[in-house]
Structures are given as structure tokens and as C-alpha cells.
């Protein structure tokens, strides 16, 4: 079942070389990972209706086959407070090259992590966990392990981050639910073991974690051979 969905989504994305966010999130949800409630639409009225349903503030992101890094292309709007602002954001984003619609999704707060996968020539699929956001390549606070992850591998990935005290709750702030984070890592590990050689790398960035859940807020799957 999961394999069939993977095939279907990858064959649609093959030409472009990467899987767009709505399809990537569908796949993650099927694999048992938590994603925000979202709607992918090219209709502004529909976007506004959905925002009312999930309650403001919401997040909007552009969906375009020409935009891999959305924030670099002004394709991400956080903390949208009302219908008017959402309408304006829609108008702005519709000017971005290759515009196919937007994702409207619930705004999630918590600690931002990155979970990733790289297909390594010598070792096969390798999984990364680190402090996420756009500065991930600057701080490089990451743990790497060969997939499939065993339970103790997932635990040691969390324990080896420099930011471990932040995850555990630093100076009175809420930490993250370690069990949920571990469950997310193990579900992701099982998913990437199904990928074989078709995928070059995956970024789930950010994965937003709080004391109750870990939610994959954005996902990018790069296919091999591009």
C-alpha cells in the first residue's frame, strides 16, 4: 500500500526531480508521521474558507515546480492573522514563477528540528537529526546514523545533540516529547528503507516539536539522477 503510493508520487515527480510539498506531506502522513492540517488550493475563496475552519493565525506557502527553497523566493508567510492578509498573501504569491496554488495550514509553535535522509554511496540511507530552521547549515548541530534505526539509535541521536538541554526543557521552558520524537524518527526510518535508490535526499525542515507532538511542517524529497 505504502509502496504503491510511493511509486505513484515518485513517477509524477520524476521529470521535475523533486516531490512538491503537498504530495510529500501525503506520503509522510501515510507513513505514520504527524503533519499540520493543511489545504492545497489555487482558489483564494477556498483558502479563506479553510483558514476560518482551522482558525487564524495560519501559515501560507507557495506551491510551484520552479521553487525548491520557498523562503528564498518569498514563498512562505507565517502568522497570517485574518482573511484580508491571507487574500493579500495569495495575490503576492500568485506572481511567483510557476505558481500552482498555495498551501494553507495551521500555525504550529515549538522547537524547530530537522530530520533528513541522504542516500550514501558506501552506506545506503543515512538519517540526520539536528536543530532545524534556516540556520541549520551554520550551527551544524546534528547526529547521523545509518538506517534502519534501532530504538537505541534513535535515542542516542537525541542524546548526542549539543542542544539536548533545549529538547529536555531549558530554564523553565517546555521541552519536547521525546517519545514522539523517537516515534517520528523510527517512522521516517521505516519510510526511507522503502525508497531504495530513487531518492537522493530528504529534508523534513522544520519538524516542530512541543511537549505533546512532533509535526513535520515542511518536507522536500529530492529524487536521484538530477
Amino acid at each position, binding site marked *: 500500500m505504502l509502496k504503491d503510493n510511493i511509486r505513484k508520487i515518485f513517477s509524477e515527480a520524476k521529470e521535475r526531480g*523533486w516531490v512538491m510539498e503537498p504530495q510529500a506531506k501525503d506520503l509522510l502522513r501515510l507513513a505514520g508521521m504527524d503533519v499540520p492540517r493543511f489545504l492545497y488550493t489555487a482558489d483564494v475563496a477556498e483558502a479563506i474558507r479553510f483558514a476560518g475552519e482551522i482558525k487564524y493565525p495560519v501559515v501560507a506557502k507557495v506551491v510551484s515546480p520552479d521553487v*525548491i*527553497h520557498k523562503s528564498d523566493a518569498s514563498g512562505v508567510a507565517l502568522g497570517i492573522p485574518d482573511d484580508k492578509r491571507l487574500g493579500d498573501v495569495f495575490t503576492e504569491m500568485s506572481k511567483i514563477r510557476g505558481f500552482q496554488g498555495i498551501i494553507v495550514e495551521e500555525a504550529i509553535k515549538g522547537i524547530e528540528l*530537522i530530520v*533528513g*535522509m*541522504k542516500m*550514501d*554511496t*558506501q*552506506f*545506503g540511507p*543515512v538519517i*540526520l537529526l*539536528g536543530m532545524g530552521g534556516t540556520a*541549520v*547549515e551554520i550551527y*551544524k548541530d*546534528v*547526529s*547521523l*546514523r*545509518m538506517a534502519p534505526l534501532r530504538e537505541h*539509535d534513535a535515542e*542516542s541521536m537525541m542524546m548526542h545533540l549539543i542542544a539536548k538541554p533545549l529538547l529536555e526543557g531549558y530554564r523553565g521552558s517546555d521541552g519536547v516529547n521525546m517519545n514522539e520524537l523517537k516515534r517520528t524518527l523510527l517512522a521516517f526510518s521505516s519510510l526511507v528503507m522503502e525508497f531504495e535508490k530513487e531518492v*537522493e*535526499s*530528504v*529534508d523534513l*525542515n522544520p519538524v516542530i516539536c512541543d511537549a505533546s507532538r512532533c509535526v513535520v511542517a515542511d518536507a*522536500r524529497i*529530492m529524487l536521484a539522477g538530477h
Partner: protein
Amino acid sequence: MNLKRLFKPETMAVVGVSLSNESNPANVVYNKNRLRYPVKVFAVNGKGGTIRGETLYRKVQDIPAKIDLVIIATKAEIVPSVVSDCIEANAGGAVIISGGFAETGCMDLQNQLVSIAKEFDFPLIGPNCLGIFSPDHMDTFFIPGERLLIPDRGRVAMVSQSGGILVDHMIKCAAEGVGMSLAVSIGNKAVIKELDLLQYFKDDPDTDVITFYLEGFDENEGRDFVVAASECGKPVIVLKSGKTPGGTKAVKSHTASIAGDYEVFSSIMSQYGVVEAKDEFEMVAFAEALSCYQRSIQGRVAIITGSGGHGALATDACFLHGLSVPVLSQSAQAELHSLVSPTIRDISSFVNPIDLTGSAVDDDFMAVVRSVSRNDDIECIIVLLLPYLPRITMDLSAQLSLLCQQEGKPIVAYIPHVDKYKMLVEGFMLNKIPVADSIEDAIHMAEAMRRYKSC
């Protein structure tokens, strides 16, 4: 693939022995084995003849004995036909010293070797390698013996893609008194690769520790290697070259950009309990420590010395290498206080590091090491033994070694390795206690046990 006849041969043939050039690699190998090792050796050259009264056989098949190992040091073009001869003669395996294969772009010639070997399940080392070194038994290195420093027979196996690095490690092992079971240079590793050797040494009763110098694995080989290493039941140590990225690749994902080849390698080695050495000094120190103790520790050490400065430097080094130097409990400190001589009782420090001062005598060291050996808060004892302390004797290291075996808690020692203190160094070394030439190396030895995860 059975590698036993290849690595423990009774008979050996050397192909390519020259009648006119004694510095030919085949001649060096033939001569050293004939003159210095118990293996029975035969010379082969397509032209035939005699060399110093012995027959030069035209082909391996012509030798009137069952041949276990064949050393091939001929021109690259004729190597495939010599390998076919070996198979016809039912030899146990071959080492191809000759270069001129994949490393010079001649992939076809190398592929020819691979397909012959695979078809007949014939073990081949190389090509483009130094081959095998087995202390007191045989040696296929085309380096004259007088240029080598040869380690004693011991329990460390070394595998290296590079022959030069292998010889260098052997020299360092010999200098540090680390004995070897076998050293193998695998060169282009066309047929026998790291994984095959890992599997061989896993079952080899003469080997306790397996070390590898690695340049890189072929596709997915790294995965098989770490899984096999974690299941092999013996410590595996690796030293990797190519840690720096060779040129920048444009990558579109954060993960691919951060997870560089070396970061991935290093993380996975540690994930599977393979001990990664950062340089050749660590490699030799790790091999020495793990050949004495095939066990893992969490990292809680006690430092026992006669100099506060040594204790402080060692504590710093422990911290940098992920070891902890826990403060001893009040009762443990009180016990040590009561055990030592009255003269040092009130000037020593028992907190950890334990400094017995320059006035300590042998019995003080013995009593303190015995007591700390029985302390469950401590997993390993680092003894920084300063031979110039005026009241200790040259017997102390041997006494401590025997005490260590009695108590069963690992000790690693530091003594400057100079001729004047050789008796103290040997008191440890000959009694299977790892002894370092620097404080840093003593810490490496303890670190080796922390990095190793026994299954």
C-alpha cells in the same frame, strides 16, 4: 572463500624470479623467504634454469609439491595466465604484487583477473600490493628485511589498502611492542576486500584485534562492513583517509550538504561500535590497549601518579577524550589515606587524580592500585609511573602488572620510553599491560575501551 592456505601456507611459489636482477621484487621475496622463514619456497620463471643451485620452474604446475601460496610479480599482461596456472596447479591462493591494473586505468586487465578468480572461487590478494606479512612464518613484501623493523608475533591483525601505510604501522607497532598476528596489504582489492578479511580474522584463533586502514568502500560495502564488525565479537579499529571533501558539489538539500562523506563515515563507525582512530598514533595506542583488554567501559577512570602536574594534564586529556575522572567517595579516600605510608599520608591527594607525591614507595602504589581496583565506581586505572621518583624500584611495573591480573581491572600505564627506563617499560609490556610513551597516549588507551562496544 577459504583463506587458510593463503595466510598460513606451508609452501610458497614466487613467479617472476630473475636470473639477472637480484633487486627484482620477486627475487627479494624469494630470497628472504628462502633464507629467513620456515615456509618452503620455490622459484618460477618462464625461461627456467637454476638459481643458486635450486631449480627455476617454468610454470607453477611444474613444481613437484602442493603449493599453498603463489606470489606473482611479473609484467601485468601475463598475470591472468599465471593465475590460470595457479588454479590448474590447485594452489591455495595468490598475491599479485604487480601493478598496471585499475590504478593505471587498465580496468579490462583487472576485470579479467576478477572473472577468473570468481569462476574458480580462487582467493586473490591485490593486485598492486605488498601482500602478506606473518611474523616468524613468511613475508611477501618486496622490501629487503634490513629496511624493516619487524613486530613480534602477537594478536593484532592489520589490513591496509596502502602498502606504505601498512609498513609504517608495523614499524610503530614494533617500536611500541605491539605484536601482530598478520598484516595484509590489499592494494586494488580486486577480489579480496576488507569484508572478506574481517570475516577471516573473526574466526582466526590467533587474532584478538582487527585494524583497517581504509581509503573508501565500494557501493554499499560500508553497510555490510559495519554490520559484520559489530557482530564479530572482536574489537575492530579503523583509520580513514580522505576526511576532507574533494571539491564542492552543488547540493540542494540541507541534509546532503551537512552530511558530508566523512561525517557519515565517522558517525556510522561509532554507531556500530567500530573504534575509529584519528591518526596513526591513536591507531597503535588503540591496538595495544584492545589487544590487552577486549572489553568496553563507560569511561570512569582513576588516575594514580606521583606528580600533581601529571595528574592535572591527564585529567584535562581525559575530559577532551570523553572520559570522566570521578571524585572518590569520602570512605574510599579515607581508606587510601589509611593504607599509605605515614610519611606521605598527609601530603598526598586522594580525591582523583590521586597524587602520591615524589616520596611514595612501591608499597604505596601497590596498596592504592589494589584498593582502587576493588572500587566499583572506577572502570579503568591510569598509572602515570615516573621512573625518576627516588624511592620506587625497577620492580614496580612488573608487580603492578601481576596485581592487575589478580584484580581483573584494566590498568594502562605511562612511562617515558627511553633506554634508561626500559626495565620498567618491559615490566608492563611483557606482562600484557599497555604502556604508553606519553600521557596523551595513555589516555588514548583508556579511550579505546570507551569507544569499543562489545556485543
